[in-house]
């Protein structure tokens, strides 16, 4: 059996998205900037896609949507625009979370080198930030608050509407990295007072290499890429209409089916959580309820994530881990550490991210095999021996 449970890393393209892309590849090859018919019909496709994306997040205007190469680019542009753009008005402070995606964190580090001060708040133990802490960190010279809609590793959903309201009151710009949330959780940028938002096509059955940045009218974006006047002069380069149209179609479909899909996915997620809960010295990371519909992040004491991951891969199960060994940088998950999970527990973590295509049978298979591999690697682990004998103290 092959079970794909790594949708937080990327999702497989839907039929809708693929068909839209193929149609564009065949029939809409003109450059939207060209004035002839070939160009203009492609421009129309682009306009339609923009309208779909705007509608999906209830943006007030279609032209508040800017297409990018993905979530990372959108994150970069949002932060740089707010920070550098408001520096001339005396703003030099930014607020974010220590559990953000590296696209946010590394851009923040870059801005720090330019002289900005950044406050990195820690969430509570359940992975959710206390809004009072954000309010307490706000200063008169704060340019921007950037808080992710939902965390990619342990799924915790942040109190976005509350944060938006707080930012509005202090007249501070609010950006949210909604890469994991778009098409999975309801987003209303107007009601939630979101000024800027990032999304990425390949997280909701769209193609890789395309994303969007929402920026409310009145916010001056600064270019990450200079050149031609595409995307209202804010993002140069001939746009990838097939990818954009495909992403828009996927987003529209995802939002339309969200309620129904989530019923199913949440049930599967909770079944998996329940099924793993009898493994001794293990725990769920992140709030059990305020979490992404498909996310299960579990730590198992005494064993290491990559070995579990490879063993599960041999059983046909695709998932990921927060261990140091599984990251390119050899650092354990900054997200788990940031919310206070002990480093040993971060090393022994697995992340399963389910979606509406998974089944109960698959979840039961995951449960069975996780029990098996945790048991196997605990038997092989001197760390586990020492935990059992009392030589080392349990942390879970």
């Amino acid at each position, binding site marked *: 059996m092959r079970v794909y449970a790594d949708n937080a890393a990327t999702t497989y393209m839907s039929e809708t998205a693929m068909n839209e892309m193929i149609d564009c590849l065949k029939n809409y090859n003109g450059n939207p900037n060209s004035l002839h018919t070939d160009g203009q019909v492609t421009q129309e496709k682009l306009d339609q896609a923009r309208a779909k994306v705007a509608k999906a997040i209830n943006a007030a205007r279609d032209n508040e949507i800017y297409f990018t190469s993905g979530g990372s680019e959108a994150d970069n542009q949002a932060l740089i625009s707010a920070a550098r753009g408001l520096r001339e008005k005396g703003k030099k402070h930014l607020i974010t979370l220590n559990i953000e995606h590296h696209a946010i964190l590394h851009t923040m580090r870059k801005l720090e080198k330019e002289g900005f001060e950044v406050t990195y708040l820690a969430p509570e133990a359940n992975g959710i930030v206390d809004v009072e802490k954000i309010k307490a960190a706000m200063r008169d010279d704060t340019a921007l608050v950037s808080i992710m809609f939902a965390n990619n590793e342990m799924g915790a959903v942040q109190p976005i509407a509350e944060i938006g309201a707080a930012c509005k009151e202090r007249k501070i710009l609010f950006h949210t990295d909604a890469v994991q949330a778009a098409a999975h959780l309801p987003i209303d940028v107007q009601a939630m007072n979101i000024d800027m938002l990032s999304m990425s096509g390949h997280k909701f059955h769209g193609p890789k290499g395309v994303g969007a940045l929402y920026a409310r009218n009145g916010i001056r974006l600064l270019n990450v890429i200079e050149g031609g006047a595409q995307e209202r002069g804010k993002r140069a380069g001939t746009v990838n209409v097939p990818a954009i149209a495909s992403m828009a179609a996927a987003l529209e479909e995802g939002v339309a089916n969200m309620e129904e899909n989530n019923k199913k996915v949440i049930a599967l997620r909770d079944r998996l959580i329940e099924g793993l809960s009898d493994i001794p010295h293990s725990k769920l990371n992140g709030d059990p309820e305020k979490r992404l519909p498909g996310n299960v992040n579990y730590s198992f004491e*005494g*064993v*290491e*994530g*990559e*070995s579990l991951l*490879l*063993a599960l891969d*041999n059983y046909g199960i695709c998932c990921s881990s927060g*261990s*140091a*060994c*599984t990251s*390119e940088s*050899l650092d*354990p998950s900054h997200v788990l550490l940031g919310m206070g999970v002990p*480093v*040993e527990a971060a*090393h022994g973590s697995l992340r399963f991210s389910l979606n509406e295509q998974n089944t109960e049978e698959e979840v039961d298979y995951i449960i069975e095999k996780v029990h098996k591999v945790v048991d196997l690697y605990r*038997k*092989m*682990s*001197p*760390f*586990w*021996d020492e935990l059992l004998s009392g030589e*080392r103290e349990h942390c879970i």
Partner: protein
Amino acid sequence: MLYTDKVMDHFENPRNVGVIEDASGVGEVGNPTCGDIMKMYLKIENDVIVDVKFKTFGCGSAIATSSMATELIKGKSINEALELTNKAVVEALDGLPARKIHCSVLAEDAIRMALKDYYTKSGKEMPEELANWEPHEEE
């Protein structure tokens, strides 16, 4: 693919996993903070490693290198075991990704720790290279 066939073989079918109750020497290196711990048990008779067992907390590379290392020293003399380098272990596995090479260093260190323990326990004279040796620091 992430790992060579040999690495996957040693990962899926690790050789010599376990403990030796009355081991001649036991060596443990690494720590849970780093995500890597290797424990080697040696049974030595007449300066020959007649049996070796290991337990490892760590990634695929860690398990594979431990397993291969035990195979490379089983039945060998202490001197031969002292000559074992992490490079030899990696070569025997047909290579490891660059960022995983440090796992093989851990295997080399675990063997030396076990040998050091053997000399300490048995009261025999420790070879100079072992007396002056300390395990690598993990960052």
